[in-house]
C-alpha cells in the first residue's frame, strides 16, 4: 500500500492536483481495488494481437493547409485574466 500511496502522490503532483493525506490514502486503496479488478485483462493472452490506436482503424488524415479566419479576440475574451496581448499569470522569475 505504501508504494501505491507514493504512486498517487507522484501522479497528483505530475498533473498538478492538490490531494490531502486522507484523500491520498483513499485513492491508494481505490487504486489497489482497481488494479486487482484489472487482473483478468492482464491474464489475457495478447501475444498475437496488435495495438489499436483508433476504433475504426483510421490513419492520421491531413487536410489541406489553407488559412482560415480565426476568432482570436473571442478566444482571448474567454481567459479570466488577459491584457495587452498576454495571458496574465503570477511572476515565474523570482
Amino acid at each position, binding site marked *: 500500500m505504501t508504494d501505491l500511496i507514493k*504512486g*498517487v502522490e*507522484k*501522479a*497528483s503532483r*505530475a*498533473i*498538478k*492536483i*492538490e*490531494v490531502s493525506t486522507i484523500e491520498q490514502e483513499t*485513492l491508494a486503496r*481505490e*487504486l489497489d*481495488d*482497481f488494479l486487482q*479488478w*484489472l487482473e*483478468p*485483462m*492482464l491474464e*489475457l493472452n*495478447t501475444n498475437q*494481437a*496488435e*495495438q*489499436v*490506436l*483508433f*476504433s*475504426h*482503424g*483510421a490513419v*492520421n*488524415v*491531413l*487536410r489541406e493547409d489553407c488559412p482560415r479566419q480565426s*476568432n482570436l479576440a*473571442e*478566444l482571448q*475574451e*474567454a*481567459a*479570466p*485574466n488577459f491584457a495587452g496581448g498576454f*495571458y496574465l*499569470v*503570477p*511572476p*515565474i522569475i523570482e
Partner: protein
Amino acid sequence: MELRKNSVRQAAEAVCNGEPTAHDLIEITLKNCSVINEGLNIFNHIAGIDAIEQAKAVDRRIENGEQLPLAGLPVVIKDDICYGVLPTGFGSSAFKDFISPHTATAVERVMDAGAIVVGKTNLDDMGMGSTTRSSPNGPTINPWVPGYTAGSAGAAAIAAGIGMFALESDSGGSLRQGASHCGVIGLRPTMGSVSRFGLNAFSSSFGQVGITAFSSENIISVLKIIAGYDPRDSATSVCTDRLDEQNSTPALKDIKIGYPVELIDYLEPSMRVIVEKTRDEYIAQGLKFENVELSLFREALQAYYVIAAAEASSNQARFDGIRFGKTGEADNLEELYHKNRSSTLGREARRRSIFGTFLLSKGNYDLYYRQALKVWSMVRQEFANAFKRCDMILLPAVKKLPASLNGDKGFLDDWSEDLFCAPVSMSGLPSLTLPAGQIEQFPVGIQLVGSPFSEELLTQVGSRVVR
C-alpha cells in the same frame, strides 16, 4: 402541439405552416422546461430569452421561404457540448458561467436546419459516469421512478416530453443507458460519422455525439442532418455519404441477427427474460437469429477503463484556469495551477486523472496501457468475426436497473454498469438502444449493434419491436 405524437417531419411542417409558429412552440416549451425541471433536475441552464430570439429568427426564415427540416423544433444539449450562447459547464462548478467561444458542429447543423436550443442538460463530473450522481448540481431524477437516477438528463427530457430530440455525448454508454432507464430511443452513431468538434470528450478514442429521441424515425432524420465530414474533426474524413448508401434496405426475412448466447446468460434472470422476449418477437416477425461469440466483454470493459483514464489524464491538462475557466489568486504559477485544477476537477475526474497518470507512468505503461490497446484490437476482431455471420447483434443495454439516488455503490460497481456498452464503444460500431420491456415500474432497453454506417437499417429493424 404534443411533441411525442409527431415525427420531426410532421412537426417541422406544422411550424412552417404557422401551426404553431416557432415562437409559440418555444414559449410553451420553455414554460414546460421550468416546471418539469423543478421535479427532475434535468437542466443546468434553460435558454430563456435566447431561445425566444432564435424562434423569432426561425419564423423570419420561414417567412422568407426557407425550407427548414427542423423548423422551430426544441432541442436539448448535454452540457459537455459547446454552444456559444449559453454557459457550458462540463459538469464542473468552476465552469458554471463559462461561455464557450465555439459552438459544436452538431449544434450548428441542427440550428441551421431550424432547431432551437432550449437548454443544456445535467451530466456527471466532467462527463465521467452514467448516472449523473457525480454532477455538482446533483443527480437527474428518473421521470418514471422518482428516487432513482435517469442515467442521462437528455433521456429524461425526452421522456418528459420537453424536447423533440437531444444531442448527447456517449463514451462508455451514458446516452444508451439513459435511454434504457428512461424508456426512450438513443443512438450512438458510427465513430467518424458525426463531428466531435465542440464536444469536451474526456476520452478522445471513445467520446461521440449521439441522439436521443422518442422514435427511430426522428433519430434518423436528425442523424442525416448532423452527420458528415467536418474539417474541424479530421476523424470524420472517413465518412462521406455512406449513410445514404444504406437506403436499399434488405427485406426483414433476409436479416440475420447475432445473438451472443453466453453473454446473455450472464444477465440477471429478469433482464435476461427481456432480451429473450425481444429475440422471440423478432423471430415471430420472420427475422433469423444466429448464435455469435462475444467472449471478451469483461476484459474489454477493463481495457476501456485503462484507456479512458489514461486519455482523461492527458485531455484534462487543458483545464488550468489560464486560457479559460475560473482562476484564483496565487503567489506563483505552480500554486495557481494547483489551485485552479483542484477546484475544477471533482472527485470522479480526479480519480480517473490520477489513475490514468499512474497507468501511463514508467513501469506501468507496458503492463496496463499497452495490454489494454492489444485487448482493444482483439475486441474489434471479435466483433468483425461476429459480423461475418450476421447483419446486426442484439445486446442488453444495461446490466442492472437504475441506481438509487441515495445509494453509494462504490466506483467499481458504477464502472461495471458499462459492461454491455463500453465494449461497443471500443468497436466504433453504431448502436441503437430501444425500449424493450419493463421490470416492475422500470423501463428496460436493449441495444442493436450494426455494421459501420448501418444506422438506417438499425432504426428500421429496431422500430419493429419498440414498446
